[in-house]
C-alpha cells in the first residue's frame, strides 16, 4: 500500500472537526495460502489475494461507513468521496488517480518449505488425516484525522482437522487444531503438539453428568477467561453483568488476568489495532478485583482507547474485541494441583465456547478429558460441555494456580457479530469447583 498519507489526512480533516469525532481510512492487503492434506497427499491448493479500503466517520451516536475493493489511489479516493457524500459534507475534488500497480505475489516464500516439511511431520505422527493448513499474511494501514498513520503486518499459521490415532482399544479419530504466529520455531512446536495429541490412550468412557470440580490445564484456561471476562468486558457489552461492578472482588486475590495484544508470540497479537492505536495490556482481573474494559476509539473514556478496536477485514467496522488472554502463574506444580482437586476432571483442550452476555451463562465444549480420582489421573473421558454462570464460576476459582504458563495453541479464532478475528491466550493450570458437566450426545 503506497498511500499519500498527508493527502488522505487533508481529505479527512473536514469530517472530524470537533473533539470526539473520528474520521479514518483503513486499508488491508491479505494473502492466504490454503493446503488441503489427506493421508499424506496434497489434494488441493488455494491462493487468495484481497485488497480493500474502508472509510469511516463517527460523530456522536452516528457512524457512516464505506467499503470498496482495492487499496490503490482510486480506491482510497472512492471511499473518501463516498464517505463525504454519506456525511453530507463537501465532495472530494475529482482528479485522475495514480494508476494502481499490484505488487507481485511472493507472500509465500515459505510455501514450498511447508509443502515439503508438513508431509514429513504428518506421516510420522498422524499418517491418516484430513487437515487444512493455512498461511495468512495481512498488512493493515490506518490513516486517521490528526493522528500518526500506522501500519501492521501479521503472518499466521494454522493447521486444523482430524486424524486417526492409535488407542489401546484400536484406532480412533481425534480432532487437532494449532494456531500460531509464523516464526522460526513454529514447525517444531507443531511437531511436538501433534506428537502429544497422537500418543496412545485408553478407550474413552462417557464424561459424567452433573456438578464436578475441574482443572483447566494445557493453557486452556485462557479460553475460559476469554469467555467469562473478555467478552463481558468488551466496551460495547451493554447488558454485561460485569458492567456495574468496577473494582468489585470477583475472584480469589491470587488471580491476575490481562488481555495483552502486545504478546506477538500469541495468535491474537498485533503492534497496532485496526484504528491505529498502539495496544496496552488491560487488567481484566487484578488480585481478584474486576479490572478495566477493552475499548476502541468509539467507546473510550478519559484515558483513550486501550487499542482493542478490531475488524475481521476492511469491509467491517471496528468493534472493541479481546486479543490474547494471559493469566499470571501461581506456584503449584501439576501434582499439587491434582492433590488439591481430589476427584474431578482434568481438561486440556476446548474446541468451542460461547457466552450469553445478558444472563452471564457460558458453555465450553471439550473434545476429551481425564477423570481424576484421589488426586491421580485415571480414565480417559470422551467429550462434553462445561457450563455455568460467569460470576459464580469466577467465585469458584480456588486460590491455587499452576506455576507454568502455557500458550493455548488450539485457541485461534473468535466470532462475534459476524466478525471473526484471531485470538490467543496463555495460562497456567486453574482449579474450579462445582461446574456443570454434560457429556456429548
Amino acid at each position: 500500500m503506497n498511500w499519500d498519507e498527508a493527502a488522505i489526512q487533508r481529505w479527512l480533516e473536514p469530517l472530524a472537526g470537533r473533539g470526539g469525532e473520528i474520521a479514518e481510512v483503513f486499508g488491508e492487503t491479505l494473502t492466504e495460502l490454503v493446503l488441503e492434506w489427506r493421508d499424506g497427499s496434497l489434494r488441493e491448493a488455494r491462493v487468495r489475494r484481497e485488497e480493500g479500503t474502508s472509510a469511516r466517520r463517527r460523530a456522536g451516536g452516528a457512524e457512516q461507513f464505506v467499503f470498496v475493493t482495492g487499496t490503490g489511489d482510486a480506491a482510497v479516493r472512492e471511499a473518501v468521496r463516498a464517505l463525504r457524500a454519506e456525511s453530507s459534507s463537501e465532495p472530494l475534488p475529482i482528479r485522475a488517480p495514480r494508476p494502481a500497480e499490484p505488487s507481485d505475489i511472493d507472500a509465500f516464500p515459505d510455501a514450498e518449505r511447508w509443502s515439503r516439511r508438513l508431509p514429513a511431520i504428518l506421516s510420522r505422527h498422524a499418517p491418516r488425516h484430513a487437515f487444512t493448513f493455512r498461511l495468512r499474511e495481512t498488512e493493515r494501514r490506518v490513516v486517521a484525522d490528526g493522528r500518526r498513520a500506522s501500519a501492521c503486518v501479521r503472518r499466521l499459521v494454522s493447521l486444523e482437522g482430524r486424524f486417526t490415532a492409535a488407542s489401546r482399544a484400536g484406532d480412533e479419530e481425534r480432532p487437532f487444531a494449532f494456531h500460531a504466529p509464523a516464526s522460526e520455531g513454529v514447525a517444531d512446536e507443531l511437531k511436538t503438539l501433534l506428537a502429544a495429541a497422537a500418543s496412545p490412550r485408553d478407550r474413552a468412557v462417557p464424561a459424567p453428568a452433573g456438578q464436578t470440580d475441574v482443572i483447566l490445564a494445557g493453557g486452556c484456561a485462557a479460553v475460559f477467561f476469554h469467555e467469562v471476562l473478555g467478552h463481558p468486558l468488551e466496551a460495547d457489552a451493554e447488558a454485561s453483568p460485569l458492567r456495574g461492578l468496577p473494582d468489585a472482588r470477583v475472584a480469589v486475590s491470587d488471580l491476575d488476568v490481562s488481555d495483552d495484544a502486545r504478546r506477538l508470540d500469541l495468535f491474537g497479537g498485533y503492534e497496532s489495532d485496526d484504528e491505529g492505536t498502539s495496544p496496552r495490556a488491560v487488567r481484566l482481573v487484578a488480585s481478584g478485583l474486576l479490572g478495566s474494559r477493552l475499548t476502541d476509539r468509539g467507546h473510550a473514556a478519559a484515558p483513550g482507547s486501550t487499542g482493542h478496536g478490531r475488524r475481521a477485514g476492511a469491509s467491517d467496522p471496528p468493534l472493541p474485541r479481546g486479543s490474547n488472554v494471559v493469566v499470571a502463574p501461581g506456584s503449584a506444580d501439576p501434582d499439587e494441583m491434582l492433590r488439591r482437586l481430589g476427584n474431578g476432571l482434568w481438561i486440556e483442550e476446548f474446541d468451542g465456547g460461547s457466552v450469553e452476555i445478558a444472563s452471564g451463562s457460558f458453555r465450553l465444549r471439550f473434545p476429551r478429558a481425564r477423570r481424576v480420582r484421589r488426586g491421580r489421573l485415571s480414565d480417559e473421558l470422551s467429550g462434553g460441555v462445561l457450563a455455568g454462570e460467569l460470576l459464580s464460576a469466577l467465585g469458584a476459582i480456588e486460590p491455587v494456580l499452576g506455576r507454568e504458563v502455557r500458550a493455548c495453541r488450539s485457541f485461534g479464532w473468535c466470532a462475534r457479530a459476524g466478525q471473526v478475528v484471531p485470538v490467543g491466550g496463555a495460562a497456567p493450570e486453574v482449579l474450579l469447583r462445582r461446574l456443570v458437566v454434560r457429556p456429548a450426545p
Partner: protein
Amino acid sequence: MTAEDLARELGRRAPGQWELYRKTAESRETESSRGLQRAAWRREEGWAARWWEAGAPRFAAASSPEALALALDPAGRLPVLQAPAPDWPSRTAPGPAEAAVAPPPDVFADLARAVAAASRGEAILGGLSLRSGRAEERIVNAAGLDVAQEHRALDGVALCVGRRGSRAREVRLPFRWDGVPDLDPFARRLADAATLPLSDRPAPFSSGQWLLDPAVGAALLTAIAPLFLADRPPRWVLRGQAASRLVSIVDDASRDASFDGEGVPTRRTLLVDEGQLVGRLYDLDAAKRAGAPPNGHGVRPSFRVPPRSGPRRLFFETSSPSAPAALLSSVTKGLFASALTAPVRVDLAADRYEIEFTGVSVVAGRAGGPVAGARSTGRLSELLRRIASVSTDTQFFPSPYPAGSPTLLVERASFE
C-alpha cells in the same frame, strides 16, 4: 487486465479445463441500537479461477483481475495430487441490467413496539442490523459456458434482551425477508426466545409428544443436511426408513437463481421421498466421482472458496399435511419447542442428537405454562421416524441457505 485476458491465460495453462468466476456486489446496511446509528455502503468485487494444471486441481481468488493473474503462478507451482477434471457445463445466458440498491426500510421503531407488545414489556429490541443488497455473478468456462445472474436480498440480525427481575436473556436471530417485512411474527419469535427462558421452570414431563416450531424444525433439517452430501451415508440411513413416511425432503432453489455456482441449471431435487433416502446433492466434482449427472448444487458461499456440493433451498414436504391448530389439539401431553437455546448437535455417524430448547408445555391440546429450558437427546433415526404429523405452515430461515420447515409433531420424545 480483463476477463478475456484471464480466460486466455487459463486456457494456456489448462487447455479445456478451466473456469472463471466473477462476483460484484453492492449493499446498503443500517444498524440501529440504543447507542449508535450506523449507515454502511459497500461495493465489493471478487474473482476466482479454477483449473486443472498438470492434471491437478488449482484454485485462486482475488479482489481484482490483476491480483488474480498474479495468484495463478503460486497456486500452479504446488505439488497437488492429480485428480480427474469435471465435465464442464456449456450454455449461455445474458446478464441482468445494473440497478441501484435502495437503502433498507427503517423498521427499528415498529419492530421495537411489536417486540414490547408481544412480550408484554418484558423484552426490548436491543439492536437491528438490516442489509439490502444486490450481487451479480458471471461464470465462464473452457466448454463455452457464459452465464450471468443477479441476486437481491433483504436480510439482517436482530438482538433482543428479555428481563424479569434479576434474570436476563439475550438472543440474536438472523432473518431474511423475501418481500415486504412481516414484523409481527418475527417480533413474536424474538419475544418468545428472549422471555420464555426467564420462567425458570423446567420441563414438567420426562416424555411425551413434541411439537417443533418451524424455526426449530429448520435448524434440525440444517443439522442433518450433510446426509445428502455423503458418498456413503451412515448405516442407519441405508437400512430402510430414514424418516417417517409422512416426511419428504426437497432442495429446490428455482425461485432464487436459475443456475448454481458452477453454471448448472437449478432444479428440484427430491432427497427423501416418504421417508426413504432417494437423492443426493451433486456439484460437478461429486457428480463425476459418483458417475451421476450434476443436479445444480455446486454452492459458492463466497468467491474466496471453490464451489462445493451443498443445499441451496432445503425444506420438508409432505403429501398429507395437517393444519397447525390440528397438530396442537392432537397433543395430549407434551412440549412445544418454540426456540433453541443452543445449536442443534447431531452425530450422524453415531445416530445421536441433542436439542436444547425453550417453549411451553401442552396438555390436552392447550398451551400450559412456559418451559425455561429442556433438552431432548437420543437416536436421530428414532426422532425422524417418530414424526407423526407435518403442518402446512412452512417458513424459511437463513442457515445461511434458506432452510424451510413447517410445525412438526414428534411422538414419544424424551425430555430432561
